[in-house]
């Protein structure tokens, strides 16, 4: 019933080494000796609370939220506060001692497959608990101010808690089934949140789009997960990775390429990779806190997280698994980071600028995974979560003040909203990667690991490295444009802007702190704790991580001037104040700009190439088929059933009923005739008994 196992010991066995788990930690990351009770005691055994508390909060808010003094917000905030606290404690102990734990409860058994509900507590999961908890807590705090007066305030926090809870289910999953459950919980709650303002049909459309695009990708994930589970014989990541680490030839290695590709397609959907990125910018239709959380800690990180969870499969040290898929992953990631960055340049909606920026940064993460840089990809995920949440919340603060999403209605907000301005600047510097802000370290590490992979046999990585450096330039360019158009010049809008209330301003400061400092946990040459925290996932075999040990000064000397050039050109083009915002935003390059404005016609292609043909002729054929063939079959079957029923009724009332009546009458007649033999005369009975005895005696004698 209650099975607990520590992954560490399993991996120790897998590696076939004599040493205990502690030895592994020391060998890998120089951790201190494990203190009993921390890494395998109540702290990790009760870590399931991280998942359960937000889910319980969902139901409390749903049933009693409206009666509470803050209409359910305090429950959501409390749940996220708990997760943040627990995550921080786990993060601390993981950093100091290293935690690798897997708890599970068996909930069903189907043949040889054990369905388990479990909770992973290892470097990767702890990082996600911490991210979801801390970013979620700050975003929830902010959301109270932002959503004030909303008609569906309580319902918003129901979906929002479910969103965070679903993500925690996903990252706690020790097997593919639970991962898919969390995956879909995140999907459905994102649908609810994007379409939160459903009075406007466009928002409903955006919600549908997000849901459908994700479903297309999910089909890939399901198929991949099923193939993987069937070929390994287990849904557990531990078992799958065990097979991979041993390099066992078998069904998994036979179908490795397609399995890896299908699972990557699933990751492409959630992590919005080109060409399935189309849903993410449209998801801006939801309230800004939703965008902040969705683009930072939850939802879009799920795909990168999945690649990280199955990383040994993709790094493929045995050379028989998903190693080939990595070339596809890095190309998709490279294309995403490069192409979607351009779209951000031409957007007027400040949230869409940030949305395309997110897609672009996700491209970096995925490309890093493709380059085999586990630590770099997840490090960027970690830092990006903070500064992108910050940027979205700051943008939300601006939108709250000027009552418009469009930068053409803004300008000159620097003086009027100082907190928002300075935190937005901090987020921007972190995003474009200026020393010593968070993005500098993570982006540098990604580029360094691409360079490393390029020099170690993955030729395509060299090309993607160039795209990555170009992407850094583009990022700097569009962020400078956004900052210039929003905060500099004179105010051109209509509403009276004002600094946001404290409830919204404080989370900005909190995230600003992380945007500055989050990168320092992996400061090459000074402190590289992040690498070892994550590496505890597979302590002895290592991750095969393509990880640079120090700062690559050659790259820094290329990238930082490139970024500064992007800032300078952006400032030169957009920094000057003009009479209107439209005049400031007139820089265009023919052919290219219309292409970006039309989003490379991908959305049009989907609409005209896939959706409309499906809805048009195919729908008509289906309708005809339905009306004539299916309905015809149904009618024939119906009429046939009616005829059969009539025959059956005739048979029943005549033959069957008649038969029973006849039997009844026969028994009745027999009884009437037999009763005459009962004369009531005992002497007759005695005589008959004697005759019977005589007959029996005679028979005995004869026979």
């Amino acid at each position, binding site marked *: 019933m209650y099975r607990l196992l520590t992954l560490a010991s399993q991996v120790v066995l897998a590696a076939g080494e004599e040493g205990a788990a502690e030895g592994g930690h020391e060998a890998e990351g120089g951790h201190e000796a494990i203190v009993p009770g921390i890494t395998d005691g109540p702290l990790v055994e009760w870590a399931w609370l991280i998942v359960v508390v937000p889910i319980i909060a969902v139901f409390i808010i749903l049933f009693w939220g409206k009666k509470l003094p803050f209409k359910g917000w305090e429950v959501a905030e409390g749940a996220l506060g708990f997760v943040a606290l627990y995550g921080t404690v786990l993060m601390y102990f993981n950093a100091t001692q290293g935690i690798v734990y897997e708890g599970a409860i068996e909930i069903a058994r189907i043949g040889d497959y054990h369905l388990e509900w479990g909770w992973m507590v290892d470097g990767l999961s702890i990082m996600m608990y911490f991210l979801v908890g801390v970013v979620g807590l700050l975003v929830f705090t902010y959301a109270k101010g932002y959503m004030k007066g909303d008609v569906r305030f309580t319902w918003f926090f129901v979906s929002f808690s479910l969103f965070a809870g679903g993500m925690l289910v996903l990252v706690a999953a020790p097997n593919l089934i639970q991962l898919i459950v969390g995956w879909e919980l995140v999907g459905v709650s994102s649908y609810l949140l994007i379409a939160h303002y459903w009075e406007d049909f466009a928002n409903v459309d955006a919600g549908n789009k997000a849901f459908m695009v994700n479903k297309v990708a999910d089909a890939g994930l399901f198929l991949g997960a099923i193939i993987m589970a069937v070929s390994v014989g287990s849904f557990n990541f531990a078992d799958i990775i065990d097979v991979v680490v041993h390099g066992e030839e078998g069904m998994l290695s036979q179908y490795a390429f397609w399995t890896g590709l299908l699972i990557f397609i699933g990751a492409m959907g959630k992590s919005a990779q080109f060409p399935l990125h189309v849903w993410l910018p449209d998801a801006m239709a939801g309230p800004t806190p939703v965008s902040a959380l969705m683009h930072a800690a939850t939802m879009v990180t799920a795909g990168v997280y999945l690649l990280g969870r199955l990383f040994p499969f993709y790094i493929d040290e045995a050379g028989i698994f998903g190693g080939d898929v990595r070339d596809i992953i890095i190309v998709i990631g490279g294309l995403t980071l490069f192409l979607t960055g351009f779209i951000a340049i031409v957007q007027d909606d400040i949230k869409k600028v940030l949305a395309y920026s997110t897609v672009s940064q996700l491209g970096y993460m995925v490309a890093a995974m493709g380059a085999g840089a586990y630590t770099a990809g997840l490090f960027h995920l970690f830092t990006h979560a903070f500064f992108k949440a910050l940027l979205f919340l700051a943008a939300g603060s601006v939108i709250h003040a000027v009552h418009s999403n469009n930068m053409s209605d803004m300008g000159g907000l620097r003086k009027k909203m100082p907190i928002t301005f300075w935190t937005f600047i901090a987020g921007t510097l972190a995003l474009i990667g200026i020393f010593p802000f968070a993005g500098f370290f993570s982006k540098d590490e990604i580029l360094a690991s691409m360079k490393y992979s390029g020099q170690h046999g993955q030729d395509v990585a060299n090309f993607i490295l160039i795209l990555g450096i170009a992407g850094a330039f583009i990022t700097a360019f569009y962020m400078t444009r956004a900052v210039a158009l929003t905060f500099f010049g004179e105010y051109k809008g209509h509403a009276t802007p004002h600094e946001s209330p404290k409830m919204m301003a404080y989370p900005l400061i909190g995230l600003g702190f992380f945007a500055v400092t989050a990168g320092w946990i992996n400061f090459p040459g000074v402190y590289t704790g992040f690498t070892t925290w994550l590496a505890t996932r597979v302590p002895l075999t290592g991750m095969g991580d393509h990880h640079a040990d120090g700062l690559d000064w050659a790259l820094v000397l290329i990238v930082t001037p490139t970024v500064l050039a992007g800032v300078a050109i952006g400032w030169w083009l957009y920094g000057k104040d003009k009479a209107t915002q439209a005049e400031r935003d007139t820089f265009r390059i023919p052919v290219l700009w219309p292409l970006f404005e039309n989003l490379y016609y991908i959305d049009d292609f989907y609409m005209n190439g896939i959706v409309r043909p499906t809805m048009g002729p195919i729908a008509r054929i289906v309708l005809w088929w339905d009306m004539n063939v299916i309905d015809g079959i149904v009618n024939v079957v119906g009429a046939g059933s009616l005829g059969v029923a009539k025959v059956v009724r005739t048979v029943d009332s005549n033959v069957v009923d008649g038969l029973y009546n006849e039997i009844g009458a026969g028994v009745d007649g027999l009884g009437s005739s037999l009763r005459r033999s009962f004369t009531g005369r005992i*002497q007759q009975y005695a005589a008959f008994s004697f005759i019977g005895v005589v007959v029996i005696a005679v028979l005995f004698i004869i026979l």
Partner: protein
Amino acid sequence: MTIVQFLIVGAALFSMGLYGVITRKNAVLLLASVELMLAGVNVNMVAFDVYLTDQLHSGQIFTLFIIAIAAAEVGIGIAIILMIFRNRQSADVDELNLMKG
């Protein structure tokens, strides 16, 4: 003395009893005839017991049982007949046909 003589006596007693049971109308006589049949059976039992030199004398013991049970049977039978006679002023078994089907 051979066993045949005893068996003849037993058969005669049994036959007389049977005749009485079938022909008598009076319930008391009927009961007496049943006793005669039992007596015939008892004679047979004792005769075979001696003839077969049974060490355990189960034939004789069984006879004692039969006599005891017959006594009880007669007690109950007479009581029933008395009650019938008291209700109907008759003990004629031909009139006792309430069980006629």
